[in-house]
């Protein structure tokens, strides 16, 4: 019994290890994931704007959207591993050529989403609008320089 439990554990561990190496991310999947996270952020900004500009009620959902944005904002930095600049992607090679400047935008984005969350949590309407504008500017600023547009 005890032994079989150990075997099971070992097997599981091996499987997990194997599973892990099987899941060594391909660039294609890394790109897919990047786009999925970006689209998730967009879904939250869209939903948030519908509430905050009074086009739908659902005030109670507001915090959920900015929570998600703030968490995703901290995750952006892992979305651009080396080798994911080619393939089915709109990310421009410039990202990996000027890491410092790109990094500043990642930090700005992380900060702006955190500020938005704080403003909503504090119930400060004016600060919320200002912070949302800053979030938008950070998305726009990065897309302007590092995302290929329609070509």
């Amino acid at each position: 019994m005890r032994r079989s439990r150990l075997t099971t554990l070992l097997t599981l561990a091996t499987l997990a290890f194997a599973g892990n190496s099987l899941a060594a991310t391909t660039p294609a999947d890394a790109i897919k994931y990047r786009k999925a996270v970006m689209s998730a952020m967009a879904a939250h900004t869209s939903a948030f704007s519908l509430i905050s500009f009074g086009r739908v009620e659902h005030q109670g959902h507001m915090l959920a959207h900015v929570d998600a944005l703030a968490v995703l904002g901290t995750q952006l930095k892992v979305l651009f591993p080396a080798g994911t600049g080619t393939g089915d992607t709109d990310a421009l090679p410039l990202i990996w050529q000027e890491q410092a400047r790109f990094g500043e935008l990642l930090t700005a984005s992380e900060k702006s989403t955190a500020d938005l969350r704080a403003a909503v949590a504090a119930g400060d309407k004016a600060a919320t609008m200002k912070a949302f504008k800053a979030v938008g500017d950070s998305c726009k600023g990065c897309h302007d320089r590092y995302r290929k547009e329609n070509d």
Partner: protein
Amino acid sequence: MSRRPWLRVESRLCAALLVWLSVSTGTAASAEQSADRMERGRYLIHAGGCISCHTADRPDAIPLAGGRRLETPFGVFYSPNLTPDPKTGLGGWTDADFNAALRHGRAPDGSPYYPVFPYPAYAGMSDRDVAAIAAWLRSLPPVDNPVPAHELPWYLGSRWVMLGWNLLFFDSRPFTADPARDTDWNRGAYLVRHLGHCGECHTPRNLLGARDDSRELAGNPDGPDNEKIPNIRQDRDGGIGRWSIEDLLLFLEMGMLPDGDFTGSSMSAVIDDNTSHLTADDRRAIAVYLQSLAPLDSPYSGAPARTAHFHHESRAGRHGSGQQSAVKVCRPQQEQEKWQECLQRTWFRWIAIGCSPACMWPSSTDPGCKHRSMHMASC
């Protein structure tokens, strides 16, 4: 000697007083008027999108001191310094000089400007608006910033070759309001067609590089910086017919697309420097005007909008006619067609402006051909 000297003295005093009064009230009024005009000028500089073009692309660049590099199918242009610096800027420019430049595309020496400076759109501006812009630009601190010369193919080296183009395509009539439409629509039309020069990017061009206004804002496959510019008429697919007026207002204010994505590309500069600075009323006027543009069943409607993500369709798939995919996926045969099109385009330009025959060769380094080879490279 006068019999009534006091009268003379008094009348002189009166006259002096009158003169003084009229001068002082005059200056008070004109000071107020000029503060007003100055504020208006500052606003119009935004509405005209002057800053994005006339500011260099460096973080430390001084706004409106020029030097931005603008790549076009006709070569590389550097925007001039608009500050009143006597040596490198517009020191000494009069209202008439500004009027000639913005409304007629002419430099003070009478030579024509290249239409990369969107004077074909600004031509419709009112005299009052031009004067306000001139006054505000003259009030800027002069900045000594020499700007590089344009890098143009030899056949465009002289400005005078643009005279022919102007004769063919340039319409300098000022905007006239359409009495059949309301104030919002007319204000929107003025902002979109003239000050905002939206059509310089969003309207397709004919083979000679002039706007095809019969397809106003129907999308431009050949936009600045080689971008494909989307159709912003009311087509439900390929245009913005699915956008509500609130969607448009939010987009013009902060660049958010209806699906929550944020625009990048040259449109983000339009939002940052122009539409986000407008009054809510002016943004609404623009939206009202855009929503009045009936769908055009145009064979090419520019780029598929980013909103493609919203509908979970591929960007190519969203485009009704399927032409987009021909551009995106260049199979040999399509490549051939594309090549023909590229050649044809260059050919027409060649006839039109005496383009270098060197353009006909794929390996050409003629700046006039750069665009074409980039176009081919993007296949």
